[in-house]
């Protein structure tokens, strides 16, 4: 897995985007934290200065300048170590006590006992330990006798604290962004890996192994769901291809015998000189064979076109009652020839939208089957019935019927039951009915008439139409 490809994955790109946003937000948060904490440190310093001034002021009030000077002197040494600075000057400005060497040159410090930020030079800091010149918080008070007391604190400690905090924050931020990136890359790798599995399977299927399926990882995630979907699609395709193969085989089988019969007859006729009538007869029979081949072929094409289902432009209103009685007129005499009783039952108006010719073809096929498979003297019923939510067209005969297990099977193309092998037909009749029914959104059901077969076409319909 090469890097450029990895960085093109959605996962990595998304992660990068989120990592940047995350870093910005986190940076803002840390900045706020830094600002707040340094404010806190500053105010701590100020409070400390104010408190110490208050306490030293107490010394002055209880014991005068001398006691104050003593207290300051006591604190000098210790203060120097902790970064606390003192300076007590007399009314004339002369230094009395304190660890600061001189009054800061910036002498406009208000003597109001409040904390101010004052520039403190190196040269007034004794020994110049580790404190550099900087703005320091300074508090000054003028005592009642005219002397002045100045307190200050080094900001060095606060700066150290802030600095280490800054380092810590930078470290956290870097780690967080790196972690996000690492997660993105891992995620990208995982997704790429799963995609590669699917893509490999697709490649093998394209290469011809139709039985290959996309393996699932067993984690039941969306990739497994996708794999399952793809697999059921592949199942369907394989099934369709199998169906097409079967039909092709059947076509080959059903076409081969009439074709070879046709050819053989012509060959045999040509073997010897024959009379004009014999030639005539052979040609006539050949034309009949060709006719039946063409018919089978056309029916197949017709079914295929119906199955593609996009020829509804010329549909109109079809009254199924009228259609049924027209068909009765056409088929009743045929039934009559076999001594069968043909009965038509129609009722309430039964108009649907559809193709009259296709519907006639479908019902005609059913009637044709009924007449063909019902013995002499049997009965055939054609009934149009309007129900609450549908219109039913039913053809019932008193023939041998179709065993329940075979009923789905006979709707397939070119299927002819053993019992009907000796009768004429191409095994496409019911397939065509099924295709027409499907095109009209109608249900097709085969049932038992005990004895006999009922075939019902059920057209969905609402009363309000």
């Amino acid at each position, binding site marked *: 897995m090469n890097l450029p490809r990895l960085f093109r994955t959605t996962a990595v790109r998304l992660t990068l985007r989120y990592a940047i946003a995350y870093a910005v937000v986190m940076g803002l948060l840390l900045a706020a934290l830094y600002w707040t904490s340094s404010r806190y440190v500053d105010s701590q310093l100020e409070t400390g200065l104010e408190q110490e001034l208050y306490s030293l002021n107490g010394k002055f009030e209880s014991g005068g300048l001398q006691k104050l000077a003593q207290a300051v002197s006591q604190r000098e040494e210790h203060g120097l170590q902790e970064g606390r600075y003192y300076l007590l000057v007399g009314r004339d400005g002369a230094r009395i006590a304190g660890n600061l060497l001189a009054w800061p040159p910036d002498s406009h410090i208000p003597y109001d006992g409040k904390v101010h930020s004052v520039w403190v030079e190196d040269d007034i800091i004794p020994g110049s330990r580790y404190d550099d010149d900087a703005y320091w918080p300074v508090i000054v008070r003028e005592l009642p006798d005219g002397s002045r007391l100045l307190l200050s604190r080094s900001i060095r400690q606060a700066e150290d604290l802030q600095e280490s905090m800054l380092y810590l924050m930078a470290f956290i931020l870097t780690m967080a962004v790196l972690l996000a990136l690492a997660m993105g890359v891992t995620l990208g790798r995982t997704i790429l890996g799963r995609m590669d599995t699917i893509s490999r399977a697709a490649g093998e299927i394209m290469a011809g192994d139709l039985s290959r399926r996309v393996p699932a990882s067993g984690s039941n995630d969306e990739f497994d769901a996708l794999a399952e979907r793809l697999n059921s699609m592949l199942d369907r395709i394989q099934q369709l291809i199998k169906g097409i193969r079967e039909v092709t085989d059947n076509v080959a089988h059903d076409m081969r015998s009439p074709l070879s019969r046709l050819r053989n007859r012509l060959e045999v006729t040509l073997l010897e000189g024959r009379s004009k009538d014999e030639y005539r007869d052979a040609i*006539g029979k050949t*034309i*009949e064979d060709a*006719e039946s081949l*063409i*018919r089978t072929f*056309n*029916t197949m*094409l*017709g079914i295929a*076109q119906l199955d593609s289902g996009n*020829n509804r*432009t*010329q549909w109109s209103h079809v009254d199924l009652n009228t259609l049924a009685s*027209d068909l009765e*007129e*056409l*088929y009743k*005499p*045929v039934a*009559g*020839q076999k001594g069968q009783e043909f009965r038509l039952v129609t009722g309430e108006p039964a108009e649907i939208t559809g*193709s009259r*010719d*296709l519907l*006639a*073809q479908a019902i*005609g*096929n059913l009637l*044709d089957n009924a*007449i*063909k498979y019902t013995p002499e003297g049997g009965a055939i019923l054609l009934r149009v019935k309007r129900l609450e939510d549908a219109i039913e067209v039913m053809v019932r005969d008193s023939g041998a019927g179709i065993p329940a297990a075979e009923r789905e099977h006979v709707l397939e193309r070119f299927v002819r039951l053993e019992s009907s092998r000796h009768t004429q*037909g191409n095994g496409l*009749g019911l397939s065509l009915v099924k295709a027409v029914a499907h095109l009209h959104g109608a249900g097709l059901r085969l049932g038992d008439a005990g004895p006999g077969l009922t075939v019902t076409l059920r057209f969905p319909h609402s009363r309000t139409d």
Partner: protein
Amino acid sequence: MRLCLSGMHILLIEDDVLAAEYLTKGLGECGHVVDHAADGNVGLNLALNGHYDVIVVDRMLPGRDGLTIIRMLRADRNQTPALVLSALGEVDDRVEGLRAGGDDYLVKPYAFSELLARLEALARRNQPAAQQQRLQIADLVIDRQNQTVKRAGRLIRLQPREFRLLEYLMRNAGRLVTRTMLLEHVWDFNFDPQTNVIDVQISRLRGKIDTGFSVPLLHTVRGAGYLLSESP
């Protein structure tokens, strides 16, 4: 077998040269004169400038397709009957073909006898017989207004559909009529009824108009259709 009548001038616009050759030969043997164009533009020119009894036009043609040719002819007020040949053959195509101004439609592969019968019916449908109130052949007479049928003066009872069937046969008397033509014109159906429904209808009609008379009028032409004629 009487398949042929004579004397039509037919324009055939068909790009399949071999098929056109067979048709020209077949139609010629029946006494018709055939002009053939293998290209849509040539065909349209011939159709516009010649006088034909009927035009046979393929739907798919180089140059200009068949339906366009018919539309242009009709736009030019040329009402020469036209039969459309097509390899498509769905209901919609058929309706489309007729809407474009075609008078009949035949799907390949078709039987030559079917084409011939339809051409003759087309070319002669505007002749007086089509409008006459009283039609007669030999001693069989039908009156379209009163819906009565008489043979040798004897009244024959027919059901309405049987009357329509006989009427159609009478109008095309002496000419071959195919089963599909009957199904189309008598029952308004355009589908393949699989079995011999038309044969049974014809034999019932034959039972009524021929049985008991010395000269049969309704003849079966094997592998093709039927013929109403005094002489077989």
